């Protein structure tokens, strides 16, 4: 077991094919460095994001979820990012009830031109989630190897 | 390369935080939602609309340009905002929805606090505001006779006599002016509130903010 090693949060990012995924491309092309803790999934639009994806990520071992989409008024599909926004707001309210810290799930608007900004936002979020520590969703833990596995919940024996 | 430039190049970077611009300062000191001061496009609608525009040293539009140019002292010394009559024409017409009238209040407060108002050509105006405020602080109500007497005695002694014999007398004769101030019942409470307000404002200023 690595001792005193800095906690490295794992963050799943959902990106819109037209803006934020291209922003990530641009960050790469500009060689803008950011920590390797975020792994992106490409969707056609932030409007495709099903809140279940976020829950699945949190439950499945992610310490945070980043949702990105086109700025309001700039959606490639006209107005679907507003739907994403509404779903996000309601989801956040619900996650609060589940005890998930607000910093762990974030929505950021990023246009295809905002590569540097996206990288900075990712850096910021990684640090914020790092400060919170692992999410360790109840019912999920990791094995010693490098593959995360799902354990069934160990119930307490004493009251 | 001259010695001067060498010196500058060699001098260490200032360790302090960058100085806040005058524009930032007035934005932060203006209440309510975003006052949009930085959005002025110099179209002149305010200056054209202002009923006392012709008497101002600088039109409101120019004040915005001067603020952006960080001409702090020149702005605070000017009579512009003291001539503002709060008619809100500028604010209603501004195509950029800048809260112009609110800026005028902010500048008045700054000029009073920092004493610039004494250097302004409208140096009478702050006294009027101050005397008015004093009466309210004391009684909770405005006191026209007291205010007029005090103000005019300081600034226009002749006018005061005219006031007393002419308009003032008429006002009293028609029952439109009190000889003694009216006061609210809970003056103590009001004063407690206002002194607390002053304290909050002071703290804010001391913490590097402005008020």
């Amino acid at each position, binding site marked *: 077991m690595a001792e005193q090693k800095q906690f490295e949060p794992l963050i799943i990012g959902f990106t819109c094919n037209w803006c934020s995924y291209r922003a990530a491309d641009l960050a790469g092309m500009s060689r803008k460095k950011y920590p390797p803790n975020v792994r992106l999934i490409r969707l056609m639009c932030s409007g495709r994001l099903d809140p279940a994806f976020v829950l699945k990520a949190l439950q499945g071992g992610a310490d945070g979820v980043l949702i990105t989409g086109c700025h309001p008024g700039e959606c490639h599909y006209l107005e679907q990012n507003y739907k994403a926004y509404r779903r996000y707001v309601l989801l956040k309210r619900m996650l609060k009830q589940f005890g998930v810290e607000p910093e762990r799930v974030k929505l950021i608007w990023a246009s295809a031109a905002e590569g540097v900004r996206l990288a900075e936002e990712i850096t910021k979020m990684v640090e914020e989630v790092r400060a919170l520590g692992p999410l360790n969703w109840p019912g999920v833990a990791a094995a010693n190897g490098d593959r995360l596995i799902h354990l069934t919940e160990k119930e307490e024996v004493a009251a | 390369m001259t010695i001067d430039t060498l010196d500058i190049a060699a001098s260490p970077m200032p360790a302090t935080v960058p100085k806040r611009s005058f524009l930032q300062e007035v934005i932060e*000191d203006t*209440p*309510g*939602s975003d006052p949009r001061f930085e959005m002025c496009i110099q179209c002149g609608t305010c200056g054209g609309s202002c*009923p*006392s525009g012709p*008497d101002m040293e600088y039109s409101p539009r120019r004040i915005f340009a001067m603020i952006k140019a960080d001409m702090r002292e020149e702005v605070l010394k000017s009579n512009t905002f*003291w*001539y503002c*009559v*709060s*008619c*809100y*024409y500028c*604010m*209603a*017409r501004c195509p950029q929805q800048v809260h112009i*009238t609110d800026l005028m*209040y*902010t500048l*008045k*407060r700054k000029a*009073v606090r920092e004493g610039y108002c004494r250097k302004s050509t*409208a140096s*009478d*105006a*702050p006294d*009027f*505001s101050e005397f*008015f*405020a004093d009466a*309210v602080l004391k009684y*909770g*109500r*405005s006191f*026209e006779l007291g205010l*007029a007497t005090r103000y005019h005695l300081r600034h226009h002694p002749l006018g005061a006599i005219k006031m007393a014999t002419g308009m003032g007398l*008429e006002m009293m004769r*028609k*029952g*439109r*002016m*009190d000889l003694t101030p*009216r006061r*609210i*019942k*809970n003056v103590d*409470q*009001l004063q*407690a*509130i*206002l*002194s*607390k*307000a*002053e304290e*909050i*404002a002071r703290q*804010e200023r001391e913490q590097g903010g402005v*008020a």
Partner: protein
Amino acid sequence: MKYNYYPGCSLERNASAYHDSTMAVAKPLGIEFQEVNDCNCCGAVEFMAIDKMQAYALIARNLSLAEQQMSNGENLVAPCSACFLNLSKCDAYLSASPALADKVNKALAAGGMHYTPGQVHTRHLLDVAVNDVGYDAIAKKVSKPLYGLRVAPYYGCLIVRPGFLDKFDDPEYPTSLDKLMRTLGATVVDFPMKAHCCGGHMTQISEPVALYMIHQLLKNAADYEADVITTICPMCQLNLDAYQHNVNKAYGTHYNIPILYFTQLMGLAFGLSAKKLGFGKEFISAAPALIKIGVKPPKKPKKKRPSKQELPMPVMPEEE
């Protein structure tokens, strides 16, 4: 209809005619006013110039009192335009800025008070008269129409600009008072400067500047042969009335236009006695103008037949 009432300092003394006439017309209008107890001065335009925090705390104390005493509904009626502006502006800015509201409430707490932004709905008396009571109800109460009286409706600034809460009339070219005066039977003159400034406190700070502004207004009303100017604000009344003499002296003019509160004219049309309506307190006597009030409705001027060459005017939407 029940309303909380905030008279402000002016109505207690220099504008007592406004207060008296407001109270006199309240009954026929079916309005019950409950004065909010122990209100303080709203700060007029002066306090804002001295200390922001104190200015807002000062106004918020009144709002807090109204909130506490809200037995007559959420409406707080201010007949004075400056009070109306200050109360509504304070409420709007406290709502817009929770940080400001927080600080103001800290100050209020020192006096054991609190105000929740948005709780009190500040209204101007004119708004209440024309929108809550309504022109039709007012028309029904008119027993002595003001036929023949040429009235210049003067709104001044703060009732329509900038309009923090209810923008009940146009900030540039308001018409509600015009329509009210027509409802009373008066002839409303075109008065392009109806929403211009009376000079406000400039009478105290720079009399020449103020006299210039007042002169313009009087000239404009006189150009259109107004018998009276009707106003909705104590400050406007005072400036136009008390300084008319000074204007005449400064400009060599001979204006003699009485400046009357709209409630006074309403009262006359309702058949109330002049004394009850506070007549006699004005500097420029209203008596000569009031003699002109006729009993017969004036004949409508015949529409001039347009000449062949004349170009049509754009159609304006009907005034409501």
